[in-house]
């Protein structure tokens, strides 16, 4: 374990403490979780203010108007047209004044107009056409049963992919009652959907457990530092960090053991 200064260790302890505080949410909502929650909300909101200022506003607006002058309202800057988005941005602020709040609809309308117009051809291409094109694949009839057990590349798998896609699309029809042949196809569609959902749920478990393992590692590293340095003060910090949670756990266990028992 590499040497760590006491200052850094205190910060690490803070991180470990907040990690445990957040985990305490699993037991129930409690003051420590509330503390962590409210702290992270404030800190992250402040963080984004700073990031958007330094990486957004300054390079995208201020630096472009930098050669302009306040007395000319920056109209003399070489990229004066960037005053337009600035003005639109300021229009958003009319929401602070009740009477003028409706002005903020203009930039909002612009924003939504640009976003929707952008989405239409892009989504048509990226989702509909791309998937449609890849759905139209020839089936490998010569290798219908495939090599070995449930071969993904086998012909029958390709048939199931195609039929499954079409049936699942059937399920999404809104203006047709699911009845007759339609019902059968839509039914197969929903089976495919459910199997797909189940499989991807099961597949994700591993990645989620990994996240927890990583948090255990962080706490382990913190513990290792505390126990392998020769300065007792590290251990004191370690005991304080974990001690609060140990005491609270004992308190909860005692409370649980002495709970009033209802007679059934």
């Amino acid at each position, binding site marked *: 374990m590499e040497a760590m200064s006491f200052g850094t260790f205190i*910060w690490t302890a*803070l*991180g*470990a403490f907040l*990690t445990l505080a*957040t*985990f305490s949410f699993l037991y129930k909502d409690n003051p420590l979780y509330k503390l962590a929650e*409210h702290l992270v*909300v*404030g*800190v*992250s*909101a*402040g963080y984004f*203010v*700073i*990031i958007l*200022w330094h990486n*957004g*506003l300054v390079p*995208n*607006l*201020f630096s472009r108007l930098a050669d302009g002058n306040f007395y000319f309202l920056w109209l003399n800057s070489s990229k004066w047209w*960037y005053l337009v*988005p600035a003005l*639109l941005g300021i229009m*958003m*602020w009319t929401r602070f004044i009740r009477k003028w709040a*409706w002005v903020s609809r203009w930039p*909002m*309308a612009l924003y939504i*107009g640009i976003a929707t*117009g952008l*989405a*239409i051809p892009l*989504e*048509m291409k990226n*989702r*509909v056409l791309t998937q449609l094109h890849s759905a139209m694949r020839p089936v490998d009839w010569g290798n219908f049963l495939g090599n070995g*057990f449930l*071969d*993904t590349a086998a012909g029958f798998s390709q048939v*199931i*992919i195609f039929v*499954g*896609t079409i049936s*699942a699309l059937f399920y*999404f029809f809104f203006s047709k009652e699911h009845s007759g042949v339609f019902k059968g196809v839509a039914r197969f569609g*929903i089976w495919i959907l*459910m*199997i*797909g*959902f*189940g499989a991807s*749920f*099961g597949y994700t*478990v591993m990645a989620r457990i990994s*996240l*927890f393992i990583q*948090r255990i590692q962080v706490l382990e590293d913190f513990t290792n530092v505390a126990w392998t340095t020769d300065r007792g003060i590290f251990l004191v910090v370690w005991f304080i960090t974990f001690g609060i949670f140990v005491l609270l756990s004992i308190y909860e266990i005692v409370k649980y053991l002495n709970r009033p028992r209802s007679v059934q």
Partner: protein
Amino acid sequence: MKRQLPLALVFIFGIFMIIQYFVPHESSEWVFEFLLDWIYIIGIFALALGIWSLIRVSWDKVKYRKENWFYSLVTLFGLFAMIVFGFDYLRNFQTAEGLQNFMFRHFFDYIMIPIQATMFSLLAFFIASAAYRAFRARSLLATLLLVAALIVMLRFNPYFGPISPYLEKTASWLLNVPNLAAKRAIVIGVGLGIVATALKVILGIERAYLGKD
């Protein structure tokens, strides 16, 4: 002015952006990039509204001593501390030195990262409790969901002896065949849904987002 102009703006800019997609020429590209800058800058200005909302809601709690008001103070502390550090103790607004500020970085590394990473890791537990609570063989559909999930979760389990390789193969088949079909159908449907909704917005049929007077 209050309602017709915004609707007209949505229509004009929407149609422009659709046409723009088909015109690769530099002039169309220039306008496109300029408009994206607009969106970006409007978004940054709007953050002020968001921060104002956060401050007002938090401050109200403190002022009227509502339940948990103390924690709102913590939020306000975090917010202002980050802003002060991020401008290098309010000394540098024009240059990005604040991003290297010692406290700014340490608040990020030892407060934001641990809490967020831990929130994320709670998923390990929630995925377990969700599976326990919801995976019941209530109906055919629920059973299909359950069985598919079980097989995939067992895919690397060695305790089934000779069946193990088959479990692994079935799992990979489930992931690559029915799962692919399901995804493809959903993606196509979603694509059409998005285009339909976007068209409704541009044509002024869906206008809930504009509010009313």
